[in-house]
């Protein structure tokens, strides 16, 4: 090869050029990390992967975040510090009697991809699918006593209820159950959306691509006709289960917004990464330790109560939530109707009382297994429980599960593992109405979400009646009593509601619910 040709193929650097290059690389490394939001792209982390393409099958917050961006509801939660909602598809919506809600849609609201205008037929179809027993929808409890939706005009209709159901406004209309789907598209699809990319959307974003286990890639929906158009050309909902990994991803510029672990709060408050800010929100979630009442080891109420007394909630909060959360008194958070001022069993527990109860039950050398999610907060909490329960003479074994395994442990439809389930540390998401908490613990939910297999007639009745009660004071009393019953059964030890600390880049104004969970459609550039 001639020398000139070799020079073109392999550029030769002299010492000065090499040093200059190295200095340039070093300087570049010192530049602040550029978050994607500056480039018209937003990356929001979600802790649980949206895995259902059809709202009728939705079950959790992952789907709620996705649907908020690609679909619309009659009303939507507002972003901010106070729980409120705004009209979205609805021009007007009104409770016209205890058992009827009348709505009128805005005209000219369109489905994407040529599916036409959104009409009252779509609204009726959406809710009737959930009510249809053949659909076996897991969000059926969200619609409570709804019996049917009457279409009174192209843009108007009436929700009819068997009995008054006040929670409908907070847990159904602006959330998963109220996600309006396109009747024509679903019928074209054979009754259920099974494709990864929905055939039509109505929200400010549309699905461009799904990368399972990694992210949902959304892009601006050019057919959107609502009031809150997409701020970003591209919006990625990034699934990262582990909070420590999410923090690293944010600091590397791969995320613009994430919830962080309670253990990072003090450090991030005193020394935040360049260009970031942190916000703290009171969470509505509830964390508890449940005991399977049907398991042979735990059928004696005295054994379950011994376990309740053996758990030191204060120690768990201090170790796993780094003292930034408070012990909870039940499944309903402070500020909501039905929150109890205190639990029946003191948070610090009582190892001596636990020993006495075990002696009364004639149980010696009790060994129980606690199942927890593979999450550092929960595994830390479990280890603290292990240590404190040992003081009561109870040996606690810990079984850690990946997300996929964990969320099917007590589900009868997913196998026989529910039979061997002894104890579980669990966390459920929550909405600003107490019925959304009690709904999962009624007898009907056994084998679905009620993994403790707790069944109490009075509890079921209270849940049912409180849902139809319109007097807040009376509801408050009923939900408090319902939580007393849960605790008296020995099947529950309430731990905390936690907190939601969010970390985000300053070039983003996050849209969040009052409890800190993101509402993707409201995110804006600073």
């Amino acid at each position: 090869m001639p020398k000139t040709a070799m020079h073109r193929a392999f550029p030769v650097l002299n010492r000065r050029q090499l040093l200059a290059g190295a200095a340039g690389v070093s300087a570049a490394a010192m530049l602040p990390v550029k978050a994607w939001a500056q480039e018209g792209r937003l990356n929001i982390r979600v802790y649980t992967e949206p895995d259902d393409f059809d709202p009728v099958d939705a079950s959790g917050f992952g789907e709620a975040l996705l649907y908020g961006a690609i679909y619309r509801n009659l009303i939507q939660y507002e972003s901010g510090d106070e729980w409120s909602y705004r009209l979205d598809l609805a021009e007007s919506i009104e409770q016209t009697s205890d058992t009827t809600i009348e709505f009128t849609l805005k005209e000219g609201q369109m489905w994407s991809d040529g599916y036409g205008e959104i009409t009252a037929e779509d609204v009726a179809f959406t809710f009737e699918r959930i009510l249809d027993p053949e659909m076996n929808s897991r969000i059926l409890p969200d619609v409570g006593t709804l019996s049917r939706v009457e279409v009174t005009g192209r843009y108007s209709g009436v929700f009819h209820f068997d009995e008054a159901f006040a929670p409908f406004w907070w847990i159904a209309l602006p959330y998963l159950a109220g996600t309006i789907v396109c009747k024509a598209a679903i019928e074209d699809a054979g009754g259920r959306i099974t494709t990864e990319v929905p055939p039509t959307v109505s929200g400010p974003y549309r699905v461009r691509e799904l990368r399972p286990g990694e992210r949902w890639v959304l892009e601006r929906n050019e057919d959107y006709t609502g009031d809150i158009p997409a701020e970003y050309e591209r919006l990625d909902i990034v699934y990262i289960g582990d909070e420590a990994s999410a923090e690293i991803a944010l600091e590397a510029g791969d995320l613009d917004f994430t919830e962080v672990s309670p253990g990072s709060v003090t450090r991030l408050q005193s020394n935040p990464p360049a260009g970031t800010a942190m916000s703290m929100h009171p969470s509505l979630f509830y964390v508890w330790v449940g005991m399977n009442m049907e398991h042979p080891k735990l059928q004696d109420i005295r054994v379950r109560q011994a376990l309740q007394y053996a758990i030191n909630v204060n120690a768990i909060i201090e170790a796993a939530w780094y003292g930034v959360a408070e012990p909870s008194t039940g499944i309903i958070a402070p500020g909501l109707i039905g929150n109890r001022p205190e639990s029946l069993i003191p948070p610090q527990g009582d190892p001596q009382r636990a020993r006495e109860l075990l002696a009364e039950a004639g149980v010696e050398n009790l060994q129980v297994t606690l199942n927890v999610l593979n999450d550092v907060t929960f595994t830390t909490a479990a280890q603290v429980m292990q240590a404190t329960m040992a003081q009561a003479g109870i040996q606690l074994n810990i079984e850690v599960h990946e997300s996929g395994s964990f969320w099917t442990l007590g589900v009868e439809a997913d196998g026989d593992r529910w039979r061997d389930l002894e104890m579980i540390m669990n966390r459920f998401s929550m909405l600003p109405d107490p019925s959304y908490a009690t709904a999962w613990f009624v007898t009907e939910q056994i084998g679905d979400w009620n993994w403790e297999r707790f069944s109490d007639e009075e509890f079921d009745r209270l849940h049912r009646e409180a849902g139809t009660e319109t007097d807040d004071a009376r509801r408050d009393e009923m939900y408090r009593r319902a939580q007393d019953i849960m605790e008296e059964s020995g099947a529950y030890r309430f731990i905390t509601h936690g907190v939601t600390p969010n970390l985000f880049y300053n070039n983003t104004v996050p849209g969040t619910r009052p409890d800190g969970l993101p509402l993707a459609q409201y995110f804006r550039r600073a």
Partner: protein
Amino acid sequence: MSRFRHTLIGRLARDPLAVMAIVIIAALVVMAVFADLIAPYDYTAMHMTDRFAAPSAEFWLGTDNLGRDTFSRLLQGGRIALTVGLTAVIISGLIGLVLGMIAGFGPRWLDNALLFFFDTLRAYPTIILALALAALMPRGLTTVIVVVVITSFAEYGRVVRTQTLSLKHSEFILAERAMGASFGRIVFHHILPNVLGPFFILAAMNLPVVITIEAGMSFLGVGVPPGTPSWGSTLKDGFDHIRQTPWLILAGGLPLILVTLGFTFLGEALRDQLDPKLRSGR
């Protein structure tokens, strides 16, 4: 004295690499065996006011996220590592030894079948196979040992088979056969002693690999349950809390580095002393 110099131990004693290996391994074994006596604290004791403490006179290697003394936990972790390592190496070695000799001595079809079996197992990436097996079994130390045995015996089998095949056709074995030596005599007096050299070298080299598999499984959350002070769990705790303290991950990695160095040095020293080709070349 001169007779001792020519024994294996005597030869190893003159090899600086072997001496270093034996010192490291002996120190680890002593610390693991006498962990309860050496440990300054109960390895489960939580000191919540001293969480994430840096190394100090009070806590020699600092503390973890629950304020537990890292040094005391690493000593207990040594017990787990040696228990898993030795048990798994002995069991997988014995299985590999037996199957390897059967393959080497058996009929052609059996040799091919076993060879296919060994190669199939070895073709899987170890940690992926370990994860798959762990998903099917209850979590715990026994599972870790079973997984490690399944993932590692094929390597012994392969080596022993190759050694057996080469010895089977050697002249002294043919001579023994011609003189009417029994099958048992040929196997136990001639083949086995000659196979054991490479076998022990492999076992020594494999021990840190086995310990690392256990640590890797615990790190990935499919090994020992949380709270069990294995070295992998300590590494995992260090990773989870790397923003709070760097000491935990450093402390968790230190014994793994030492055990790997120690057993690798020992394996190399044994190979130098036991491999006739290397010895003659010296």
